[in-house]
């Protein structure tokens, strides 16, 4: 497509904000971050080059190691559960149920609430002496035990419970859109073939919804990497450091602990990891001709 000069100017003008943001903010700030990670900056940035010492102490830091470990567990569970729950919800709603709009909104509303307080509520609910376990026992189920949030090796799963609670409504919406996009005639064909409904979903519908699953998975993945307020509000990383996550490591060290050097080293590590994962994906998509 040959563009006249004025068209080309327009395009450049339109992309100028994006370019500026990209260069000044993202590339500039990222560069600054990487540089800071090579200094011994504490509360205020300084330029005392210390080489890779921050990285050394980062990878010798139990809390960081635990954080990385946790984000992997959380990521895998959260993404797969949110996809599964969201999909099931969408399937349920798709059965022409009554009050569909209301139910859909009920599934969707958690997405509108910040974790500042909902985290606290989840903390209460999961707390053994306050929440569900307490209620169950007071109903006479003496043996009922649900105390994951106070058990270091289980606490991260509690974050998953709340995370799924918040995100699966969004997944539901995406999946519902995907389901509604499936040709009615496929359903008819399956009925004529005498396939049971679950079989249709399992063998035909799910394979057809690749696009919806991909969209949802990308959105959920960004949420995983950025996971912060959930951990702060629900467990504040605890018990101990059992439910710490990388973004919280960065934040805590950036502000509360006034350790910019270490925080930026952690951030740089995250950034490199993301690029290592996302870049091949983008490249693959570009190869497929999806990105022009």
């Amino acid at each position: 497509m040959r563009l006249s000069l004025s068209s080309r100017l327009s395009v450049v003008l339109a992309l100028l904000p994006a370019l500026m943001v990209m260069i000044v903010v993202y590339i500039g700030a990222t560069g600054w971050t990487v540089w800071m990670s090579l200094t011994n900056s504490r509360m205020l940035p300084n330029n005392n080059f210390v080489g890779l010492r921050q990285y050394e102490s980062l990878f010798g830091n139990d809390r960081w190691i635990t954080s990385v470990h946790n984000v992997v567990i959380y990521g895998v569970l959260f993404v797969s559960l949110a996809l599964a729950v969201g999909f099931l919800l969408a399937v349920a709603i798709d059965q022409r149920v009554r009050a569909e709009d209301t139910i859909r909104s009920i599934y969707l509303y958690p997405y509108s609430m910040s974790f500042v307080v909902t985290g606290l509520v989840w903390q209460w609910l999961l707390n053994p002496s306050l929440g569900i376990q307490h209620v169950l026992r007071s109903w006479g189920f003496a043996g009922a035990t649900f105390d994951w949030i106070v058990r270091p090796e289980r606490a991260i799963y509690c974050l998953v419970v709340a995370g799924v609670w918040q995100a699966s409504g969004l997944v539901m919406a995406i999946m519902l859109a995907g389901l509604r996009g499936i040709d009615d005639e496929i359903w008819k064909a399956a009925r004529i073939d005498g396939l049971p409904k679950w079989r249709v979903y399992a063998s035909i519908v799910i394979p057809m919804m690749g696009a919806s699953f991909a969209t949802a998975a990308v959105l959920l993945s960004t949420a995983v990497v950025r996971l912060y307020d959930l951990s702060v509000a629900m467990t504040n990383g605890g018990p101990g450091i059992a439910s710490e996550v990388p973004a919280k490591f960065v934040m805590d060290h950036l502000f509360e602990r006034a350790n910019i050097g270490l925080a930026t080293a952690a951030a740089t590590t995250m950034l490199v990891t993301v690029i290592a994962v996302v870049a091949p994906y983008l490249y693959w998509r570009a190869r497929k001709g999806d990105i022009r």
Partner: protein
Amino acid sequence: MQRANVDIRSLRIGFGGLKVLDNLNLHVEASEFLVLLGPSGCGKSTLLNAIAGLIDVKSGEIHIGGRDVTWAEPKDRGIAMVFQSYALYPRMTVRKNMSFGLQVAGTPQDEIGRRLGEAAQMLRLTELLDRRPFELSGGQRQRVAIGRALVRHAGVYLFDEPLSNLDAQLRAELRVEIKRLHARLGATMIYVTHDQIEALTLADRIAVMQGGVIQQLDTPKMIYRAPVNRFVASFVGSPAMNFIPGSIARDGGAAFVAGTSRFSLNGYVFRGPPTDAPAVLGIRPEHVEVTASDDPFAVPARVEMVEPMGADSLIWCRLADGTAFSLRHDADAPLRAGDTLALRFPPETLSLFDDKSGQRL
């Protein structure tokens, strides 16, 4: 369950407040090829889906092979169905698409293999069995969809505009294939289309529908030659039938008068005694004859446009009084816009309709 007949009694179907089919009766003989023909939205798919058990009926009964299946599950009706959009399972191979229903029904492996082989051979799909739908052309996809129906060994095959997503050439090809299939299987087939060529070439009988009502149920020949009303006349046939408004005059042998032109009706078989009333004369383009200009029944007309269509040409003319109509003529005739022709409208090919009711006279 081969050669089942289909019997539909007082069928009523509606969506919400909308009545789509109202008291519809239809009997399809075993082994018959019935085509449902009609404009978009007239209820063809609705009827077909009701036969398949894919939508609920309000009242009435559906019998297939003598059994009342009004409330039976689709899979228990002994039917198979082919859809307009193919509706292939996109992530499954052709083989899987065709065998999946049988597998789920628990048919033994060797029986599945046998039927699959048979259908694949019949439809020339053997080479394609391991491909996925997106690796197939439109025509191949539709063949697979037919194959999926075939392996069910059903007594009744239902087709919902199976060819309308294909281009002309493929359409012609698959049309022949379906016709052959019918001859070979001898199964009952009900076939929805809004393409009249398909209807005419395939059907034993055609049911022309409009607004949920069957207007005419007859052989293709009768539908084409003796449409019962103006709707059927205009809907069937392409290029379309010409309609010339005028009136019947019985002074000195029945004739049709339109403006200054006068057409003999000698030889036209009236359904009832003719009256001197406003009427519409219908004639198909291919029935208009070019004759010598001294023919006593000849009407002069001026050529306005010539559309060559390969084998023949469509000639657009105007009568002296301005009535426009078309005629079909040998492609080789050296006709040009502006020429004047002498035309004859053979009475035995005409159709006459009441001006008001549109019913055939």
